């Protein structure tokens, strides 16, 4: 009896052994390879990190940077344009007679490191920035609730002035942390603690270090259109300035994003829109503006047949 049991167990082990350890299956039935694949995929899914994409449609919420990055080897030519105050009335064609503009060239060194150069008409200002994505929102193997970006920008004004200003006195710097979460496909929010350092402030009583907290967001109303908003609350500010408040639309036009907005800020660099906004929304000091950009692919994958 015991012998029989031993023999039968051996038989059983033998069958299992030959099937599993040799990785081969019974010939009498075909293996269900489809079920096999499904099982395998389920197992690997848990081990894959799924990064959340398209928190915003553009690298800018409106004036401020967003957590979106320019892709590796991609170069973006960006034109940001703000007209005059709508309160200028018919005489100023509701602001369209005046314009403030920034031309920018921005580049993706990697998907997580971007650099940019710009020139703005206001104060004839040059700017440069470095932007690095520290954290990427993700699910799956790594569950990261937010994306985190550090932005450093430097600004240099060249507008001629009656009193001679040294190079140093024409410099300003900004440090920002962009903390964003895409809550759903349609809703994203971003917080922006910011420090703007201005080497030469207009009045002796003004602080050189100006602290602020920005909040920006977008609500998608269709696949192609999103409503955006952005506000910077300043904890200390230059005399005669106010907080920047903007609302707009992001409209996707096949590979490009067209941003239309209303803002009380004139400039498009951190120094100018965070700390140098003077328009009063209540008095109609609102500007119509837009950002447009064109992406150039500087390096294509080997053998790519893409024409752009």
């Amino acid at each position, binding site marked *: 009896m015991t012998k029989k049991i031993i023999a039968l167990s051996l038989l059983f082990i*033998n069958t299992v052994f030959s099937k599993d350890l040799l990785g081969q299956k019974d010939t009498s039935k075909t293996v269900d390879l489809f079920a096999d694949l499904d099982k395998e995929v389920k197992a690997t899914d848990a081990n894959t990190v799924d990064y959340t994409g398209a928190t915003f449609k553009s690298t800018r919420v409106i004036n401020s940077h967003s957590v979106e990055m320019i892709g590796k080897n991609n170069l973006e030519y960006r034109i940001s344009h703000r007209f005059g105050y709508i309160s200028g009335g018919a005489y100023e064609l509701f602001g369209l007679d005046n314009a403030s503009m920034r031309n920018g060239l921005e580049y993706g060194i990697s998907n997580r490191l971007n650099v940019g150069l710009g020139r703005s008409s206001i104060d004839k200002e040059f700017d440069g920035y470095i932007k690095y994505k520290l954290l990427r929102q993700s699910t799956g193997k790594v569950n990261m609730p937010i994306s985190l970006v550090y932005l450093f920008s430097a600004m240099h004004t060249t507008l001629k002035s009656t009193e001679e200003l040294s190079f140093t006195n024409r410099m300003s710097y900004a440090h920002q942390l962009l903390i964003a979460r895409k809550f759903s496909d349609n809703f994203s929010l971003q917080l922006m603690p910011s420090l703007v350092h201005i080497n030469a402030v207009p009045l002796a009583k003004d602080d050189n270090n100006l602290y602020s907290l920005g909040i920006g967001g977008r609500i998608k109303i269709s*696949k192609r259109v999103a409503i955006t908003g952005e506000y910077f609350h300043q904890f200390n500010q230059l005399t005669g300035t106010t907080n920047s408040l903007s609302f707009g639309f992001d409209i996707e036009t096949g*590979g490009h994003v067209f941003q239309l907005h209303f803002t009380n800020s004139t400039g498009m660099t951190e120094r100018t829109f965070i700390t140098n906004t003077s328009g009063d929304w209540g008095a109609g000091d609102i500007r119509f503006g837009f950002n447009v950009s064109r*992406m150039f692919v500087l390096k294509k994958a080997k053998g790519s047949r893409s024409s752009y």
Partner: protein
Amino acid sequence: MKKIALIICFVITAFVGSSQEKIYSTKAATISFFSSTPVEKIEAINSQVTAKLSDKSGQLAFILLIKGFKFDNALMQEHFNENYMESSKFPKADFKGIISNISTVNFAKDGIYAVTIDGNLTIHGVTKKITQTGTIEVKGGKIIAKSIFKIKVKDFGITGKYIGEKIANEVEATVVCTFD
């Protein structure tokens, strides 16, 4: 006597157990697609496709993550995922099919064999029955399954303003599964 019978059983089961069907498998198959219109040519490639092939039943299956398609233009990649493929809703695409003339392929002999495959292709949550031709190349122990076929974008419920303008109505898909 009983012992001998058992030993025979033992040997037979071992023999039967190590059957002949072989499953080829890879996690690095590639699928690319190419959209060509007079306005723009767009190509993207996914080289992290999981594929399996049975040399007996002719079952062939592959599955991929839509987000795994790489474009030269990162912005375009994002729009592809967000607006066209809705990859957060439909993260995967797969194909499950059977090579109807698998018996004509001699996996032991080098050569290129023409095959026909019937199966279900699922993209964007829509499953369609397709019949396509392709080749299986046997080359020094390597098995390379290849197929180039057209996909009608609208068949899979993929919509968008630029389909028919910048994006072709029919895109060409190239599947290359190299099994070592």
